[in-house]
């Protein structure tokens, strides 16, 4: 009996190992390949991207983990020599950071309202937020586009930032976190004569610190990854974020694309390594739409 259990656990472990390799491989490959020289990339992947820029192109594709010669030349080319890529990276940052900061600020106030006062009216609005949260982009982009047009902010950053700030996702998640704060604490503070703003800033917010962090990570990834909104709401290529731009850089300079791809994933990977526990907690709490 015991032997059997050890055996099944061994099988599970092996399965996990296989899955882990599958999950990690693309990321690791991207990172290691970014240290290859342009020539080596061309030699290895020339067949796929058919960029016969001279030199040796191998007949078959070599998926290689470890570069023959580690070089930073791709990074130097991408970041220092041609500032246009750096500009795209700034675009990404300038789009995402305001969204994360203001969305959290507005959401925390709204979540406090949903936590502190219950009632049919508020329950209805909360339900509405949930429905809105579940709507795909295809639905919400049309209203966003119309408003941006009326406000005259189409083709500016604001067309993406403003709707992003009011996205209901973080309101929903933060409310779930806040509702776990014992109501007694709020009541006690009230008896002691604290105003609503005091209760909010001195009792609710400090207890939601980890929640805010985890939601910030989730929102950051979501918008860092965005492609749909800039494609529709930002027409000129100049202000596109790196995510959209990466797909157009692919064809010509593959080596450069690898380096930029790595640069692009650095912020999210750092966030992940630093805040994994918070992130997992955040995801786990998003787990039920009801209640």
């Amino acid at each position, binding site marked *: 009996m015991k032997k059997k259990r050890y055996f099944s656990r061994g099988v599970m*472990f092996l399965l996990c190992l296989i*899955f882990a390799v599958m*999950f*990690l491989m*693309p*990321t690791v*490959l*991207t990172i290691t*390949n970014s240290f290859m020289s342009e020539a080596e990339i061309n030699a290895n992947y020339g*067949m*796929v*991207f058919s960029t016969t820029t001279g030199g040796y192109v191998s007949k*078959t*594709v070599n*998926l290689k983990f470890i570069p023959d010669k580690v070089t930073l030349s791709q990074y130097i080319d991408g970041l220092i020599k041609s500032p246009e890529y750096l500009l795209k990276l700034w675009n990404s940052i300038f789009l995402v950071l305001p969204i994360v900061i203001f969305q959290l600020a*507005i959401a925390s106030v*709204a979540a406090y*309202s*949903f936590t*502190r*006062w219950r009632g049919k009216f*508020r329950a209805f*609005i909360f339900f509405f937020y949930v429905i*809105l949260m*579940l709507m795909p982009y*295809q*639905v919400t*982009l*049309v*209203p966003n586009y119309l408003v941006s047009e009326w406000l005259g902010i189409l083709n500016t950053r604001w067309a993406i930032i*403003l709707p992003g*700030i*009011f996205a*209901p996702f973080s309101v929903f998640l933060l409310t779930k976190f806040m509702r776990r704060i014992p109501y007694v604490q709020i009541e006690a503070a009230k008896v002691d004569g604290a105003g609503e703003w005091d209760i909010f800033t001195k009792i609710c917010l400090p207890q939601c610190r980890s929640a805010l962090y985890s939601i910030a990570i989730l929102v950051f*990834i979501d918008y860092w*990854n965005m492609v*749909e909104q800039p*494609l*529709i709401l930002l027409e000129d290529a100049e202000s596109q974020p790196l*995510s*959209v731009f*990466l*797909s157009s850089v*692919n064809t010509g300079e*593959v080596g450069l694309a*690898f380096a930029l*791809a790595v640069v*692009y*994933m650095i912020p*999210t*990977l750092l*966030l*992940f390594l630093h805040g994994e526990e918070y992130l*997992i907690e955040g995801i*786990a*709490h998003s*787990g*039920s*739409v*009801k209640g």
Partner: protein
Amino acid sequence: MIWLNRIYTSGGELASECETERATINTMDNRRRQRNKTKREDFFRSLCFLMPSLLGVGVFFILPFFVVVYYSMIDGVSSRNFVFLDNFIKLLDNSAFKMAAKNTLQFSFTAVPLAVVLAMGLALMLECRIPGKSRFRTFFLSPMMVPVASVVLIWQVLFGYNGTINEFIMLFGADRIDWLQSDYCQIVVLILFLWKNLGYNMILFMAGLANIPKELLEVADVEGASEAYKFFAIKLRYLSPTVLFVTILSLINSFKVFREVYLLSGDYPYEKLYMLQHFMNNTFRSLDYQKLSAAAVLMALFMVGLIAFLFWAEDRFGKDVEG
């Protein structure tokens, strides 16, 4: 005289009783008024806190959505004749829309069940006390943090016509497949989708599994229940709200798969990969408001219907364990 006196006194008592009663009525009235006042104040306060968010949501989502509904029922932004359902009928006749809807649905109906079942499998696998559990959790979750744009290159290397997977296939003497330009293209996107989303779903399932009362499983163990029985009779039932949520979430994410397709094969992919978002993007380019609005309204209705159905199903089949 005494009785008279008694009447007087009782009268007095009566009067005083009346007075106290009036007083209590008074205070009750006051209290109600007070309560109403605090209620009104509370309402006002709650609205103050809610206002920034509500205002933004109203301006950017709700009000324009009403306009979208209105646009979907008129024949043109300039002429504004009310045509009711004509735009919808036209839309349903539109071949591009039909193709996009068909592809999207086809993709969703394969991707969502796989995303749910595989993620549950991963979560259950990590539940068996294997060494390095949290390491594996990190590994499985990591794709979520990698922007799609960053790994598309690897996908192209893997699935290109001259790519690694075709090399592998040819090793076994089979014909190579033009993955992105044939009917197999949805598989490529499906793998990317699963790679990206399984980790998130797995965490949700792990949270769900952690909520199952330990005693229940211990009792089942003592009673000698089989693993299969434990899974179907206990775990699956407790997981039913999680299954619902993961299904909804994966469904929404599967509608977002345009992102992957766009990054893999641009604006004009192989026709099997022409998704609803492609249709929307192209319609945006031609600025056909009527078509856009009708499509948005139709999709919103579809989503609401689908979510309502999922809630109903969860209510029906997962009810007995709640609470």
